[in-house]
C-alpha cells in the first residue's frame, strides 16, 4: 500500500498537499518511513504549471489504514507449562550367592531361564512369550497400578537378574508367581504336585529382591520343615532361611534376630512362642505364609486365633485342599487373609465371589496336559485261608458283641471292629499269612528287575515294620512318624540316590504331604485310608512335576471284606462330589466316612443322631 511516485508527483502541483504519511508499524513488514516528496524535475509529468518552481509545502498526517486488528502479529509461541507425575520404585536388595562346594555338581544341572527370542520353534511358541504382572483388582490408586504395569515380564526378571533357576518354570507357574507377586492376600490352592512351593519361593525371592518385603515368616507342619529347607536351597539358594527351633531361649533369640529375611517354623512352636511373648514384643512381618493352611480351618482353634494375631502386611496361604469338609472352612482362611471381617459369616455366593478374587487354583488336567498319566488299578485279592478264617471269626464275634451292646453301642465300638478287620486283611497275626504281601512281592520283583522304585503307603506303622522285615530283598526304607525328624531327610536322599533301594514304606500321616518323590514310578496303597483326598495326596508324592514316566497306582482291596465295603462307600461319595462340581476335581470333597456310614458297614444304625460326625483319625497323626 505504498503511494506510487506518479501519484505523489501529481499531487505536488498544488500549493498545499495533504499526503498521508503511513507509519512503519502500520505495515505488516518493515519499511522505511516516507519522509517528504522531492520534485524530480522542474516540469512535472502532468504538464501543469511549469512556472511553479518552488518546494511545495507538505504536511504529514496520520490516517488510519482501516486494517482489522486480527491481522496484527500479536501471537507469540507460548505453550502451557508441562507438568509431570512421578513414581519412584523401592531400591533392590542384593544377596550374595552362597559359595559352591567343590563336589557340588549342581551347576551342571542348572538350566538358566531362556528368555523367549524372536526365532523360537513352534513348540516354544506354544507358551506365552511374556508373563506381565497385572495390578491386583483392589489396587485403586494410579501409583499402585503403575507399579505393577511397569514391572518387567517375569521371564525377563528371572533371566535378567542373574537368578539361577534349577528348572524353567512351567507357564502355569509363571502365572502363579505373577499372581502371588501382586497379591497382598492370596490363597494358592493348586492341586498337589503343580509346584506351589516353587511358586511361593520364587515370588518371595522377587519381592525380596525388589525391596518390597524384608521379613517373612513361613509356618508349616513340622514334618515339612526339612522339605522346605531343601526347596529353598534348590530355588533360592542365596536367600538366608533360619528355622525357629531349639530351646525357649534360643527360639526367643531367633524371633528377635534382626536382618534375617526368612524365618521358618511349625504351627506348634509358633503358637507356643507367640502366646508366651508379650504383645508389644511380638515380631512384625512383611509377609506371613501358611503352608498346608487347612490347619487353621477351624476359626476358633488356638492355632487359628494366634495365627490371625500375627503382625503382618501381607498374608498368603498354600493348600491343595482349601475345603476338606465344608465350604465354611474357607471363612477361617479368609479371616486370616483379612478379606472378611472377624466373625463374618458369608454365604455361598459371597464365598464364591471372594474365591474368584483371592484364590488361584489349577488342576493337573488343565495346567499339565503334557504330564505323564497316572494309571490306577485296583487289585482285588482273595484272603489267604488263614486270613479268611481269622477274618470270619473276628467279624462274627464283633458283630455279635455290637448287637449285644444294644443302645450302649457307640461309633467308637464299631470303629474298633473296622480297624481290627482291616488289620486282618493286611496279614493274619497268628500265621503272618498275607495275600497282599504275596502280590506285592510279585510286583516288586518285576519293578526291581527293571530298576524301578516304588512307594508303599499304610495306615499303621506296625504294618510298615512288619513289611520291612519281609521285603529285605528289595532293600526297603521305612519313613513314618516313629522315625526321628533328623533321620527322615537322609532316608529320602538314600531312596533317591541308592539304586539298590527299590521301595520306600511310608505312613499316610507322615509321608502323604509335601514330599517330592517323582523319581518313583509305582505307588502301592497297602490299605485304604478313610478319605480319598488323603490317598490322592499320597499318590501325588510321585505323580507330580518332574515325573517323566507313567505312575502306576495299585490299591489292594480284599474281596468280601470290610475293605470292599469301604471302597464302595468312598467310590459313591466321590461320584456324588464329581456330579455336583462336574469338573473332575475331587480333592475338596467331604469324603471321610461319617458315623452313619460306619454303622452302615455292618447294617447297624447310628443311635444318637450324630450322622454327620467325622470319626476318621487325624491325617497328621500316625496310627500306632
Amino acid at each position, binding site marked *: 500500500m505504498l503511494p506510487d511516485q506518479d501519484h505523489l508527483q501529481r499531487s505536488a502541483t498544488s500549493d498545499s498537499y495533504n499526503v498521508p504519511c503511513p507509519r512503519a508499524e502500520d505495515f505488516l513488514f518493515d519499511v522505511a518511513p516516507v519522509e517528504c516528496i522531492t520534485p524530480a524535475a522542474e516540469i512535472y509529468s502532468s504538464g501543469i504549471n511549469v512556472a511553479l518552481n518552488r518546494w511545495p509545502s507538505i504536511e504529514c498526517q496520520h490516517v488510519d489504514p482501516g486494517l482489522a486488528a486480527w491481522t496484527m502479529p500479536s501471537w507469540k509461541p507460548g505453550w502451557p507449562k508441562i507438568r*509431570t507425575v512421578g513414581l519412584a520404585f523401592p531400591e533392590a536388595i542384593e544377596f550374595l550367592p552362597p559359595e559352591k562346594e567343590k563336589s557340588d555338581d549342581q551347576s551342571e544341572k542348572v538350566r538358566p531361564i531362556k528368555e523367549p527370542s524372536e526365532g523360537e520353534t513352534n513348540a516354544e511358541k506354544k507358551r506365552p512369550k511374556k508373563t506381565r504382572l497385572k495390578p491386583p483388582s483392589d489396587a485403586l490408586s*494410579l501409583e499402585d497400578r503403575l507399579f505393577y504395569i511397569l514391572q*518387567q515380564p517375569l521371564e525377563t526378571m528371572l533371566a535378567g537378574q542373574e537368578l539361577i533357576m534349577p528348572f524353567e518354570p512351567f507357564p502355569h507357574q509363571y502365572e502363579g508367581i505373577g499372581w502371588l507377586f501382586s497379591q497382598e492376600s492370596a490363597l494358592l490352592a493348586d492341586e498337589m504336585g503343580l509346584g506351589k512351593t516353587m511358586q511361593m519361593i520364587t515370588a518371595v525371592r522377587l519381592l525380596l529382591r525388589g525391596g518390597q518385603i524384608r521379613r517373612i515368616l513361613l509356618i508349616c507342619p513340622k514334618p515339612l520343615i526339612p522339605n522346605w529347607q531343601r526347596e529353598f536351597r534348590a530355588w533360592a539358594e542365596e536367600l538366608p532361611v533360619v528355622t525357629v527351633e531349639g530351646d525357649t531361649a534360643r527360639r526367643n533369640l531367633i524371633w528377635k534376630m534382626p536382618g534375617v529375611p526368612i524365618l521358618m517354623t511349625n504351627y506348634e512352636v509358633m503358637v507356643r512362642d507367640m502366646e508366651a511373648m508379650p504383645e508389644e514384643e511380638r515380631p512384625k512381618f512383611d509377609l506371613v505364609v501358611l503352608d498346608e493352611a487347612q490347619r487353621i480351618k477351624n476359626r476358633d482353634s488356638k492355632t487359628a486365633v494366634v495365627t490371625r494375631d500375627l503382625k503382618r502386611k501381607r498374608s498368603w496361604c498354600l493348600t491343595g485342599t482349601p475345603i476338606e469338609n465344608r465350604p465354611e472352612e474357607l471363612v477361617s482362611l479368609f479371616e486370616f487373609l483379612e478379606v472378611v471381617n472377624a466373625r463374618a459369616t458369608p454365604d455361598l455366593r459371597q464365598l464364591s465371589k471372594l474365591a474368584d478374587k483371592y484364590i488361584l487354583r489349577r488342576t493337573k488336567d488343565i495346567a499339565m496336559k503334557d504330564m505323564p498319566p497316572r494309571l490306577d488299578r485296583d487289585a482285588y485279592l482273595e484272603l489267604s485261608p488263614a486270613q479268611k478264617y481269622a477274618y470270619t471269626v473276628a467279624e462274627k464275634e464283633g458283630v455279635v458283641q455290637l448287637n449285644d451292646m444294644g443302645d450302649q453301642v457307640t461309633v467308637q465300638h464299631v470303629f474298633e471292629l473296622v480297624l481290627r478287620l482291616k488289620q486282618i486283611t493286611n496279614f493274619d497275626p497268628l500265621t503272618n499269612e498275607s495275600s497282599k504281601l504275596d502280590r506285592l512281592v510279585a510286583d516288586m520283583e518285576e519293578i526291581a528287575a527293571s530298576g524301578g522304585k516304588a512307594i508303599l503307603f499304610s495306615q499303621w506303622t506296625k504294618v510298615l515294620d512288619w513289611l520291612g522285615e519281609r521285603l529285605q530283598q528289595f532293600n526297603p526304607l521305612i519313613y513314618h512318624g516313629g522315625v526321628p525328624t533328623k533321620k527322615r531327610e537322609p532316608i529320602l536322599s538314600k531312596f533317591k540316590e541308592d539304586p539298590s533301594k527299590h521301595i520306600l514304606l511310608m505312613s499316610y500321616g507322615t509321608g502323604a504331604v509335601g514330599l517330592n518323590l517323582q523319581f518313583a514310578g509305582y505307588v502301592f496303597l497297602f490299605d485304604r485310608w478313610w478319605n480319598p483326598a488323603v490317598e490322592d495326596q499320597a499318590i501325588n508324592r510321585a505323580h507330580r512335576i518332574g515325573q517323566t514316566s507313567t505312575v502306576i497306582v495299585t490299591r489292594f482291596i480284599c474281596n468280601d471284606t470290610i475293605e470292599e465295603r469301604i471302597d464302595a462307600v468312598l467310590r459313591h461319595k466321590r461320584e456324588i462330589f464329581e456330579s455336583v462340581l462336574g469338573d473332575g476335581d475331587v480333592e475338596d470333597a467331604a469324603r471321610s466316612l461319617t458315623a452313619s456310614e460306619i454303622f452302615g458297614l455292618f447294617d447297624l444304625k447310628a443311635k444318637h443322631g450324630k450322622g454327620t460326625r467325622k470319626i476318621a483319625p487325624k491325617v497328621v497323626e500316625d496310627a500306632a
Partner: protein
Amino acid sequence: MASGSKEGKEQIRLGFMTAVEIGDRSFVGGLLVTDRFGRPLEFQCTTPVKPNRTQELLYGPTLVPFILGDLLGKALLDRVSVKPLLVMTSRIEMLQLRTKVDVPIIYDEASSETDSKTTQSEQSVAKEQTVPIGRQTFRTHEDFTDDRSTVEQISQQLSNDANMHEPLERVGDALRETMSTVTARPRVA
C-alpha cells in the same frame, strides 16, 4: 579392574521414553528409567498437551516433533531424579530432543515398521547412525556423530540378548493406563 567394571555396571541407568496420542491430538509423554536388567527405578509421565489451531497452522510439520521433543521430552528429562545415561525412544519425533540435552537420544528402528508416518527417506539411514543394543538396532541423531561410540560403550555392558523394545511397551501401557484412569475419574464441580 574387575571391581571397577562391576561398579560401572551398577551405575548404568537406561531411559525409555515414548509418547502416545490420545483422543483429539493431545499427547502425553512417559519416561521410565531402569537399571541394566530392565528393573524399573523411576517413572515420570506428563500431563496431556494439546496444540491449538494456530499452533497447528504455524508449526506445520514441525508441530509433533516440537511437542514430543522440545516440550514433553525435555520436561521429562528435567524432572526425573535418576538421570539416565542414554534414552531410547520409539518415537522418531523425539530424536529432536537430542539438540536440547546432553544425553544421547536414540530411536528404536523396529518401531518404524509400525509407524506409518515414517517416510521412506527417514528409513534409509546411514550406517554410521545405527547402533545395536541387545537384540535391537537403534538410530542416533544425525548431527551428533559421537553418540554412536558412547552408546556402544554402554551397550557392551548389557546383555546381547536384552530386549530393549519391551520396556518401551511398558511405558506405552503405563501411559494408556494413566489416561484411562484420569479420563474415568469423575470431575469435581
